[in-house]
């Protein structure tokens, strides 16, 4: 336990030193990195025992009044997530340092950024280790608030105010669900230790269901499941440097951890709760990716793809719960294993993708697909690494995304050989189809992203590229890409780490069932070998031939301009037209008028978020409308004010008399 504390302390020291050396901006980042490295070392040396064995390390801290006795416990599940947090956080730290090299002397304080960044990391590490409701809530909110400050680094950006308020209010509302859930569990269970939750959940009944769904909603805010995701497409794009990666990958993972923890404490879940979560998750996956396709800002695409991946993780968790509920241990195993694996993978490739697009952003200060293009020629390294991320996130072989998706697929068809309920079978098949659809749509989304941003030519002539990003930025991306490839080719490296987490959730572990994953990675090797062979043949064939360079064939039309390239919006048009009912698209057409129109026709499409528009905005407007009905109270007339007092006297006097029994 000691080395965990030392690690946390190191992070804090790093943060505080960054704050102190705020003025010399370069030092701030370096301090963070150095102490982050120490912290990573200590924390690694600590978590390897609970992660690799079944051992649980517990420590009891006796705090004073508001918090009380805090049990800090690191079991397999916690250790898995601590590992994820510290690895990604350290990589993000490196990247952030490189990113901020572009923002020195621009009035932004990198020192403060690193301070809150480190606090964010610390709070995440502690959130997954504490077993006390109050301490948990405090840390949870510190996580939200520090991420809020980290995120609002670019506070001069256009719509940053809107984004910031949306983010923090969403977090606030989410936290209230958790507060209520923890309170009910604490009061009914008799203690604010997690034992109380376990007691309530295992007792079952309506109360347990209510508590579970309150927890689910509270965590769904962080994970980003619909309809609680609305903050997410604003927050991630606004976040600077490595923070977007940390928020999208790691903070989401913390939410998933919490959900898994609650599931782990609940014993056998109800069947219907599994189905509800499955429905929400499938909805998130399909809605998320469809909306992602409709957007033309790369960061928005990545954010909505996060909603999609949240859905996929949710599907996996739902599969696990259904497995437990129906007594199908293998399904449960694949579900939870898939969820854990996919969380890890998502953190890796989403981090990679955000790093990539932020690198582009540091060069051209835009992430709008309709302006970008041909980035691969100026920033080849970034482009290829982004390509790896895209392939991985779509789940294409031979990268890691496929492995985790494969496990999730497995959880649904593993029941074929067992006697499962008809409903479950039908739902499983449909879920398979939806997962497949999600994958295919993700392909559309990421071919669109990569194709329009990195390939072709710039769509706007004003875009001027300077150079490839610095090594502080490309190195972390390289590391993450190698991780993608390594996990894809050698999933065993991760699957051995799933044993501890699953054991601590009380889910059986079937080592032999993971052999399929190894099998798949074997086929990947064949693929790579064949690819090498084919490329070699091609090289031999073309060796003595002269390769001509020419302009792209313009179908006989000579005056081809960059602006004629297919844009993101046009690329996704067939799909957005088909899925119009679930999208929010604003079409702006300015028709030319008059016989001799001066202005040409202009047509633009602006994508939004249907759920936000239909659900959140409407709700908020209704509530505001209701509140506005009372805005006459403060009229400014003293007479009115006195009338209120008089009426209060009368009302209270009547109440008093009534109460006294007159």
């Amino acid at each position, binding site marked *: 336990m000691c080395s965990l504390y030392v690690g946390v302390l190191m992070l804090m020291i790093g943060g505080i030193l960054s704050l102190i050396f705020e003025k010399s901006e370069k030092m701030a980042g370096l301090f963070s990195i150095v102490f982050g490295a120490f912290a990573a070392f200590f924390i690694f040396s600590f978590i390897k025992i609970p992660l690799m064995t079944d051992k649980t390390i517990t420590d009891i801290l006796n705090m004073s009044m508001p918090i009380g006795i805090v049990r800090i416990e690191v079991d397999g599940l916690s250790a898995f997530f601590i590992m994820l947090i510290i690895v990604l956080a350290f990589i993000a730290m490196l990247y952030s340092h490189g990113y901020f090299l572009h923002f020195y002397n621009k009035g932004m304080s990198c020192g403060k950024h690193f301070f809150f960044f480190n606090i964010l990391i610390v709070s995440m590490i502690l959130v997954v280790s504490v077993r006390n409701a109050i301490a948990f809530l405090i840390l949870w909110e510190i996580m939200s608030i520090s991420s809020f400050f980290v995120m609002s680094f670019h506070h001069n950006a256009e719509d940053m105010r809107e984004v910031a308020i949306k983010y923090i209010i969403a977090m606030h509302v989410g936290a209230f669900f958790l507060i209520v859930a923890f309170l009910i569990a604490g009061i009914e269970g008799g203690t604010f230790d997690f034992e109380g939750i376990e007691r309530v959940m295992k007792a079952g009944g309506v109360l347990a269901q209510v508590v579970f769904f309150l927890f689910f909603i509270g965590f769904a805010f962080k994970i980003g499941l619909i309809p609680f995701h609305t903050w997410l497409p604003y927050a991630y794009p606004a976040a600077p440097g490595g923070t977007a990666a940390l928020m999208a990958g790691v903070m989401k993972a913390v939410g998933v951890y919490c959900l898994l923890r609650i599931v782990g404490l609940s014993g056998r879940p109800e069947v219907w709760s599994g189905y509800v979560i499955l429905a929400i998750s499938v909805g998130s996956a399909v809605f998320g990716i469809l909306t992602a396709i409709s957007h033309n800002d790369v960061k928005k695409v990545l954010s909505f793809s996060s909603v999609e991946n949240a859905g996929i993780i949710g599907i996996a968790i739902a599969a696990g719960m259904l497995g437990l509920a129906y007594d199908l241990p293998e399904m449960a195993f694949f579900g939870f294993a898939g969820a854990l694996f996919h969380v890890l993978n998502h953190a890796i490739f989403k981090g990679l993708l955000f790093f990539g697009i932020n690198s582009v952003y540091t060069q051209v200060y835009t992430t709008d697909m309709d302006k970008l293009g041909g980035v691969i020629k100026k920033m080849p390294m970034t482009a290829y690494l982004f390509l790896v991320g895209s392939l991985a996130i779509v789940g294409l072989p031979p990268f890691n995304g496929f492995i985790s998706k494969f496990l999730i697929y497995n959880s649904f068809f593993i029941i074929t050989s067992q006697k499962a309920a008809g409903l479950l079978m039908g739902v499983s098949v449909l879920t398979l189809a939806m997962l*497949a659809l999600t994958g295919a749509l993700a392909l559309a989304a990421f071919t669109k992203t990569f194709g329009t941003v990195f390939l072709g030519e710039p769509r706007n002539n004003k875009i001027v590229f300077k150079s490839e990003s610095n090594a502080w930025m490309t190195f972390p991306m390289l590391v993450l890409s190698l991780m993608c490839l390594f996990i894809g080719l050698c999933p065993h490296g991760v699957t051995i780490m799933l044993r501890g987490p699953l054991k601590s959730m009380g889910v059986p572990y079937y080592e032999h069932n993971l052999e399929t994953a190894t099998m798949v990675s074997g086929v990947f090797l064949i*693929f790579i070998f064949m690819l090498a062979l084919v490329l070699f043949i091609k090289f031999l064939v073309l060796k003595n031939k002269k390769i001509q360079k020419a302009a792209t064939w313009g*179908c006989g039309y000579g005056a081809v301009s960059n602006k004629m390239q297919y844009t993101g919006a046009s690329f996704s048009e067939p*799909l957005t037209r088909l899925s119009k009912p679930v999208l929010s698209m604003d079409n702006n057409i300015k028709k030319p008028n008059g016989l001799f129109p001066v202005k040409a026709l202009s047509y633009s499409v602006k994508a939004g978020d249907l759920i936000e528009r239909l659900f959140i905005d409407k709700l908020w407007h209704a509530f505001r409308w209701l509140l506005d009905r009372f805005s006459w109270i403060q009229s400014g007339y003293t007479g009115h004010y006195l009338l209120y007092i008089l009426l209060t006297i009368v009302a209270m006097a009547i109440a008093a008399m009534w109460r006294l029994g007159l």
Partner: protein
Amino acid sequence: MMDAAVRYVLMIVVALLMPGLINKVKALWGGRQGASILQPIYDICRLFHKSQVISETTSPIFRVAPSINLVASLCAGLVVPVAGKESLIYFNGDFVFFAYILALGRFFTVLGALDTGSSFEGMGASREVTFSALIEPAFFIIMGAMAMLTGYTSFSQIFSLIPGLLQNIKINDAGVSIAELIRLWAHSELLVAAVCGNIVFLIMILVEASRLPVDDPTTHLELTMIHEVMVLDNSGIDLAFIQWASALKIGMLGTLIVALILPAALYMWSAVMLYLFLMLLVAITIGSIESVMARLRMTHVPQFVLGASSIALIVLAILLLGHKQ
């Protein structure tokens, strides 16, 4: 193992013949002599000898895309059971791998198209991802339903079992009364599953390999094309790879169709002969469809493709009903 490898090679060869066969069938329907069945192979060979012209706009992605597409198709073939026996490689859930490795090929084809910066190729790419996304659920529903029916989850096992189960249904060779037939159909969900599955696979061929009525590989009117328009800028060996990969897709999906109806447990040679015969039937069917149907309007294609999903859903419904009994 050796046996499976031979079958794999057999499938690749048959696949290379498929486009030629289909074209021949179309020519015959049109009352023409038509080109030789081997014409596509000649084309590929010829392209191997040619040099390349590459757009200045492109990046290395454009140059590796066709190779990756080809290798992806070849890899996908590894899990396809040919002629009634297990495939070269099989594992639980290999159909997921099959779908995703094909998607990898598609991913790079689309990127290659976008890399040229041509709006025509972008258009094709856009349509490609749309229609392939729509066909994907159908494939998974049909495979999932069949997996549920049979209790197995790999191509080889599912397809070896379904025909076997079909054979177990006792049909009086002489006279089957209509009532008996209806009873059979109603109770032999596998038969319906097989038929529906084949229809879905057929639609998949039409979509994936860009055939009529979804796409017309013969015209070069850019606005109506999907697949062909994406490869406008490819030449030489890359084009050869692309055509090969395209033929492979037809071949593999055709093999799947055949596998559904090919009775298992036949002797090696009879199985192969039957396989070749059935592949010919598939080619004739596709050719006939192409000959008698007009190309659909681009806006109607999604309905057609989604039809596959609804057919797949029928299989699912049958599965659920059957489960109740």
